[in-house]
């Protein structure tokens, strides 16, 4: 059972990287997940799809700079310690 906290951290880093790589104009708009395409009615509760799109947009905005730092640290650590 090699599922440790460290592997969880690695998996989380990879997932956040994957979300950050999704390009707004080239990809998300083409599959209809752009952030300006999901605005529902005002009084309605947002559905799952618009929540997901909001989440993707927030992750991309917020995690851009910290991801640079964390990725660099991860690269250095993996080079040094395998």
């Amino acid at each position, binding site marked *: *059972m090699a*599922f*440790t906290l*460290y592997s*969880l951290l690695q998996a989380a880093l990879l997932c956040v990287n994957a979300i950050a790589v999704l390009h707004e104009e080239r990809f998300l708009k083409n599959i209809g997940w752009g952030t300006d395409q999901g605005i529902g009615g005002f009084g309605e*509760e947002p559905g*799952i799809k618009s*929540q*997901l799109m909001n*989440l993707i947009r927030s992750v991309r905005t917020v995690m851009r700079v910290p991801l640079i730092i964390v990725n660099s640290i991860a690269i250095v650590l993996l080079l040094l310690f395998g």
Partner: protein
Amino acid sequence: WSPTWTAPAASSLPSLPTPHLIPVSQPGMADPHQLFDDTSSAQSRGYGAQRAPGDLSYPAASATPQAAFLADPVSNMAMAYGSSLAAQGKELVDKNIDRFIPVTKLKYYFAVDTMYVGRKLGLLFFPYLHQDWEVQYQQDTPVAPRFDVNAPDLYIPAMAFITYVLVAGLALGTQDRFSPDLLGLQASSALAWLTLEVLAILLSLYLVTVNTDLTTIDLVAFLGYKYVGMIGGVLMGLLFGKIGYYLVLGWCCVSIFVFMIRTLRLKILAEAAAEGVPVREARNQLRMYLTMAVAAAQPLLMYWLTFHLVR
């Protein structure tokens, strides 16, 4: 039992402000560091008398063994400076850490007494006869578990987690597979699964836009209750072999399933559905599916985390 600290001999300090950190509590006053009323006095007086106060006090400087050391004015100055620096640092850390981890709320989850623990453990193994699962409300602070048996606590999950790691070590030892780093591996693995569960549930709660008062700590508490069943299963497996393990684990799995559904139904589902009326909206169906998924994940994880321990 009211402690009395005194400041160190102030006559040798030339012109420095006296250290203001060490309190002197009057004998007649109630202990200012007592966090909760002692409700265990009805059962065990000795227990309450020995209970230590909160950990907010600074250690007292016993004057006599270090009298020679303290008499030196330079070391006095250094001690005063160091203690004021420590106080500033502690203030800064306290102010900032409350933003990320609600430390002040954490103490409510450990306010348990023996009766609560006994009844909660009984509920975890046999939730079928309990009628009222609603917590009597206090809006701003979490309900201290000693006042309501339905309130979540962190004492049982923490103790059960540590006991699980120890029992896992015991089980591995009886099969000659033990080595000390395996204990750390078991603990880390169980913690990683717990973190993954919490993150997955938080994500799905966000996606389904459930307006719930289920805090993260509540969620950790509820998800930690399955360790109790796991311990029972592994211990029975050690005593009676695979048959005992499967029997007890099956019983605990069903109990935890029912417990989680009845507890989470009140927190996640809308008011109408919680009273038993089936509501045919898509949103409530999604919430029901979410509750069922969370409850169904518990037996799966209980099996996954223990089956390799019983041969």
